[in-house]
C-alpha cells in the first residue's frame, strides 16, 4: 500500500512547523519575561532613588539631579540614594548569578552563596582583615573577601560532593554547607564579642545592608561583578553539558574540570565582591535562581539572563521595603531577604521530590 508521497511530506512538514512554532513560542515567552523584569528594574531604580525617609520631595531631587545645585537634596541624592541603589542593583546581579552557577555546578536546587557559607567565609576573612590587619576601606577588603569566598567555595565543593556521594543527595550537601556557615558565623561573632574594641568597625559592617557603605562601595564591586558575569556567560554552554552528567559532558567534548574551575572563579568574584561591598546577604541566589529555573527552563543561557535582571528586582524591592517596614528606622536588608527567602525555601522543600531523594 503506497501512501501518497505528497501527503506524507506535508504531514512531516506540518509537524516540523508545529515544533518550530512551539519553540518560537517558548522563546517568545521567555523574552517576554525578560522584558518584564527589565521594566521592573527601571521602575524600581526610580522608586529607590526617589523614595526614602528624609523629607526631601521628588521635585527637589529632580531639580538637584538636573541642575547639580548643592544643597540637602543634592547630598541625599548623590551620597545616599544613588550609591545605595547602584549597590543594590549590582549586588542583585552578582548574588543571583552566583546562586545560578552554584545550583548548576552542584546540581543542588538549594545552593546559595549565603546558605552554603560562601558569604560567611568572605565575611570572616574581612573580619580578620579589619580586626587584625587594620584594613579599613572597601578596596582593601576585596582581596580578603575573595580569599575567604574562594576557600569556602572549595571546601563546600569538596565536602559537599563527598557527603552527597556517601549519604545521598542535596540534603547532605546543604547541611554540610549550613554547618560550615554556622562555624564561620560563630567564629566571626565570637571574635567581635570577645574583643569589642578591636572589632568595633566590624560590627557596623557585619549586617548585610546597602546603606552606609560609603559613596564608592559600588564602584569597587562593579568590576568584580562584570568580570564574574562575563566568565559565567562564557561557560553557559559547558554548564548545560555538565548538567547532563559528568560522562555525558565529557562525551560532548566539554572539560568538566575546566568548567568547574572557571565556575568557582566566577562564584568567588561575584559573591566575594558583593560581600566585601555590602556585607553578607543570603537567599537572593536561592530565590532568583530557583524562579529562573521554573520560568526559563533548564537552559543555562536563559537562566543567566533572567538572573541578571530579576536579581536587582529582588534586592531593590528588599531595600525599599527595609526603609519602611520599621518606620522611622531601617532594618538591614539581610533580614528582609531572610523573611522572603525562608518561606520560599520551605515551599521548594515541601513540593519537590528531587530534593529529598
Amino acid at each position, binding site marked *: 500500500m503506497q501512501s501518497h508521497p505528497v501527503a506524507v511530506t506535508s504531514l512531516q512538514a506540518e509537524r516540523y512547523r508545529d515544533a518550530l512554532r512551539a519553540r518560537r513560542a517558548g522563546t517568545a515567552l521567555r523574552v517576554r519575561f525578560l522584558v518584564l523584569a527589565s521594566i521592573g528594574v527601571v521602575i524600581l531604580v526610580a522608586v529607590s532613588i526617589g523614595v526614602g525617609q528624609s523629607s526631601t520631595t521628588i521635585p527637589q531631587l529632580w531639580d538637584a539631579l538636573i541642575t547639580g545645585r548643592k544643597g540637602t537634596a543634592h547630598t541625599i541624592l548623590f551620597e545616599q540614594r544613588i550609591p545605595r541603589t547602584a549597590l543594590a542593583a549590582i549586588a542583585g546581579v552578582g548574588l543571583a548569578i552566583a546562586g545560578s552557577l552554584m545550583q548548576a555546578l552542584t546540581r543542588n536546587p538549594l545552593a546559595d552563596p549565603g546558605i552554603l557559607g560562601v558569604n560567611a567565609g568572605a565575611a570572616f576573612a574581612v573580619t580578620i582583615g579589619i580586626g587584625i590587619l587594620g584594613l579599613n576601606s572597601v578596596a582593601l577588603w576585596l582581596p580578603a573577601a575573595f580569599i575567604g569566598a574562594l576557600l569556602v567555595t572549595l571546601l563546600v565543593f569538596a565536602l559537599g560532593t563527598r557527603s552527597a556521594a556517601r549519604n545521598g543527595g542535596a540534603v547532605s550537601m546543604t547541611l554540610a554547607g549550613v554547618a*560550615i556557615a554556622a562555624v564561620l558565623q560563630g567564629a566571626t561573632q565570637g571574635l567581635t564579642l570577645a574583643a569589642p574594641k578591636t572589632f568595633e568597625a566590624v560590627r557596623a559592617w557585619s549586617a548585610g545592608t546597602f546603606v552606609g557603605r560609603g559613596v564608592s562601595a559600588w564602584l569597587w564591586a562593579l568590576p568584580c561583578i562584570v568580570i564574574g558575569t562575563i566568565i559565567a556567560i562564557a561557560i553557559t554552554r559547558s554548564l548545560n553539558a555538565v548538567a547532563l552528567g559528568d560522562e555525558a559532558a565529557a562525551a560532548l567534548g566539554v572539560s568538566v574540570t575546566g568548567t568547574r574551575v572557571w565556575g568557582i572563579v566566577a562564584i568567588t568574584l561575584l559573591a566575594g565582591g558583593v560581600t566585601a561591598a555590602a556585607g553578607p546577604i543570603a537567599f537572593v541566589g536561592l530565590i532568583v535562581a530557583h524562579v529562573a529555573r521554573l520560568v526559563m527552563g533548564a537552559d543555562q543561557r536563559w537562566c543567566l539572563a533572567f538572573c541578571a535582571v530579576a536579581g536587582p528586582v529582588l534586592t531593590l524591592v528588599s531595600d525599599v521595603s527595609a526603609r519602611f517596614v520599621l518606620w522611622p528606622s531601617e532594618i538591614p536588608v539581610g533580614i528582609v531577604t531572610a523573611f522572603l527567602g525562608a518561606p520560599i525555601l*520551605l515551599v521548594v522543600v515541601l513540593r519537590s521530590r528531587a530534593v529529598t531523594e
Partner: protein
Amino acid sequence: MSTAELSREIRGGRRRIRVRRILHTAIDVRTLVTIVGLVLATLVVGFISLMLGDTMLGPGDVWDALTGRAMQSINFVVIELRLPRVLGCMLIGGMLGASGAIFQTITRNPLGSPDILGFSTGAHLGGTAAIVVFGTTMVSAAGGALVGGTLTAAVILLLSSRGGAKGGRLILTGIAVTAMLSAANSWLILRADLTIAQIAAAWGAGSMVGQNSDTVRLLVITAVVLGVACVFLARPLAQLDLGDERAASTGARPRLVRVLAIAIGVAFVAITTAVAGPIAFVALSAPQIARRIARAPGTPVAPAAAAGALIVTAADLAGQNLIPGMQFQVGIVTVIFGGLYLVWLLCFAKGKK
C-alpha cells in the same frame, strides 16, 4: 538492697545487669561504665573550672570552700560566683544531651536534633518576644521560650509529616524555619527599646554569665522532674525503634510515648534556652558521641545527658581560659566545635545515616 535484684544475663553476647524489677530495665555494663566515666570527667572539669578565673585558686582552697571550711573571701568566690555557673553548665548540658537523644530516637536520624530542626530558635524567639512584650523577668522568658519551642515543634512536625517525617525533608524544613525565625528575632531586637533590646541580645548569645542560685534551682527542679519521666520512658522509647506495629504488639503505646517524649524533649530545650539562651549543637553531638563510646544500639538517653554535661562544662572552661585576654561565650565555642563535628559526621563518619 533487698528489693534490688542482681543477676547476670548473657543476651546476645552483651553482659547486662538487671537492676530493680520496678523499672523493668536492663542496663548494659558498657553503657553504665560510660555514664560513670563521663560523669566523673564532668566533675573533674567542673572542679578545674572552679579553680580558674580572675583569682586563681588551688585545689585545696576549692575543696575547703565546697566543704564549708574556707575563708569568707574564698567562699564567696567559689560558692557565690563560680559554683552556680558550673552547676548551670552541667545541668544545661545534661538536659540538652537528653533532649537530643530523645529527638534522634524519634526521628531515627542522627541529624534530627532540636537545634537543626529549629526548636531552639523557636524557643529563642518566644523568649525574646516575651521579654519585649511582658518584661525582663526570668518567668516571662521561660514561659515565652516554652510556648515558642512547642509551637515551632508542632509546626515543623506538621509540615514535614505530610510527606512522611523523612530525614531529609525534616531537616530542610528545619533549616528554612530556623532562618525565618532568626530573622524575626533580629527584627524584634531592633524594634525594642534600647535597654530591653540589650538584655534580649545578651540573653541570645548563649552565655552562662547570668547564672545565679535562682536559675540553678529552676534547673535542678526541671532536671529532676523531667529526668524521672525520662527514666520511665526509656524502655518504651527503645521499643519504638522496632517500628510502630511491633511496638504496639509488645504492649507499648507508640503514639502516646512519642507525644510524651516530644513534650519532654521540647521542655528540656525550652528551659535551657530560657535560662542561658540558645546553645547550639550540644543536642546534636552529645548523643552521637555517647553512642560511639558506649557502642550501644540506638541512642540511649542517660549517656547522652552525661556527655552533654561534659561538653558544656568543657566549652565554658575553654571559652573563658583558652585564649588569654579573650572570653568567648559557651554558645560560640559549641557552635564552632559542634559545626566542625557536624561536617565530620556528614563527610567522614562510618555507620548508618
